[in-house]
């Protein structure tokens, strides 16, 4: 059976999701921040985590964006292969949703139309769109506005297979340590291991949209996530980078088969404002 979905419905939903993501942090993120605040050993770190919680309340109650960097809109689309899209082109529909969300929702326009000429597009378009065709007749939309304080500290490492799991651990720690206070810790660390140069980066980004603190289904990867969270929190960077035991809130790792000659690792750093909203049409 073919199901018809109007692209104008995609536009409307994306508009709402941009606004929602920037004012209401998802429940999973709020929970890990609250938990961290209880456990933080540094008094200043604890105070900063309390401020972050207060900030979240003010944002949602008074409709002030959680952070002034309302991000570049990253949009993941999983489109069922039995869906027929009707209306404006899919990309135009997504960008129109972003345009309406950012202009109508009092969000900051942080996108320049050309990376070197650097003129602001004034409506935060275009979005970065990742589309996947999947079985079924639904359209799953994930909107994840990404701030660049943390994006700028993200890295891709093309390791040698001989470097193995120790090499991966070092890569993750190096990226986090270098990010330090710049990435607005406590962070969420998304990691992609395997695939190719671009695949590992995309996996790392996707990992950030996972329910915060949920683990990989692969036993050794789950263990690696737990071990890395502990190691990262042992770095001492702490909330705001001002020292403490909470440097990361979660480490999410995705893996994929790779080439006999390679071991790509991407580390996508996100701040505590790890925004993701999901809707299924």
């Amino acid at each position, binding site marked *: 059976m073919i199901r018809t979905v109007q692209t104008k419905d995609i536009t409307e939903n994306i508009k709402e999701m941009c606004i929602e993501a920037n004012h209401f942090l998802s429940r999973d993120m709020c929970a890990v921040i609250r938990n961290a605040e209880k456990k933080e050993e540094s008094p200043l770190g604890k105070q900063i985590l309390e401020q972050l919680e207060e*900030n979240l309340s003010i944002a949602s109650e008074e409709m002030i964006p959680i952070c002034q960097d309302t991000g570049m809109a990253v949009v993941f689309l999983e489109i069922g292969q039995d869906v027929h899209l009707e209306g404006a082109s899919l990309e135009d529909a997504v960008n129109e949703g972003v345009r309406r969300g950012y202009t109508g929702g009092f969000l900051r326009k942080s996108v320049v139309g050309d990376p070197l000429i650097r003129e602001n597009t004034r409506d935060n378009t275009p979005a970065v769109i990742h589309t996947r065709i999947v079985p079924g007749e639904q359209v799953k939309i994930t909107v994840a506005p990404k701030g660049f*304080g943390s994006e700028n500290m993200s890295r891709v490492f093309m390791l040698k297979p001989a470097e193995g799991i120790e090499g991966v651990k070092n890569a993750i720690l190096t990226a986090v340590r270098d990010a330090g206070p710049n990435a607005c810790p406590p962070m969420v660390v998304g990691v992609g291991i395997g695939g190719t140069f671009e695949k590992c980066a995309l996996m790392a980004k996707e990992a950030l949209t996972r329910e915060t603190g949920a683990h990989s289904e692969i036993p050794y990867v789950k263990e690696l996530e737990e071990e890395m969270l502990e190691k990262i929190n042992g770095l001492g960077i702490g909330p705001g980078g001002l020292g403490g035991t909470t440097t990361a809130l979660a480490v999410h790792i995705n893996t994929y088969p790779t080439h006999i000659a390679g071991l790509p690792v991407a580390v996508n750093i996100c701040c505590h404002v790890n925004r993701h909203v999901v809707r299924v049409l």
Partner: protein
Amino acid sequence: MNRHIEAPIDKKEAKSLKAGDYVYITGTIYTARDAAHKRMYDILAEGGELPVDLKGQVIYYMGPSPAREGRVIGSAGPTTASRMDKYTPQLLDLGMGAMIGKGKRSPEVIEAIKRNDAVYFAAVGGAGALLSKCITSSEVVAYEDLGTEAIRKLTVENFPAIVVIDSEGNNLYETAIKEYCRTEENGR
């Protein structure tokens, strides 16, 4: 130590601040981020005059989200300071008193802070809604065409910040991390 200070800031006050002090800033400050810095830098290179006399001024690295109707400003937290490092020593030498941002600074900036008895504050990154509550007025005073990156004059009341780099060059980012670091390799 908790301190209440005024902006603009005088050198004596700046000198008395120590890395780790928690301050509440009240008075007038100015915003400037990437594009405004580049423009000021280009103007100085051409021998022109800056739109704001920087003497003693506190510059906040911030580009707000738009204000809703009836509000002074939108979300208003700090942006990463290191992107301004290239331009900062010159502005400090021109008398800029302090900066508010987040994240590390270059050795050149730290030298210029020491040389000029200035101070670098951090505000909590990602707390823009909370920080916006301390801003009681906002007015674009230069480079309006830069949108969020324009230079704004802000009135702030008890704006919370932490002294990260003081006039002696002490750096809280380095000292505080060591205290909680549990790995052998240490915080580099």
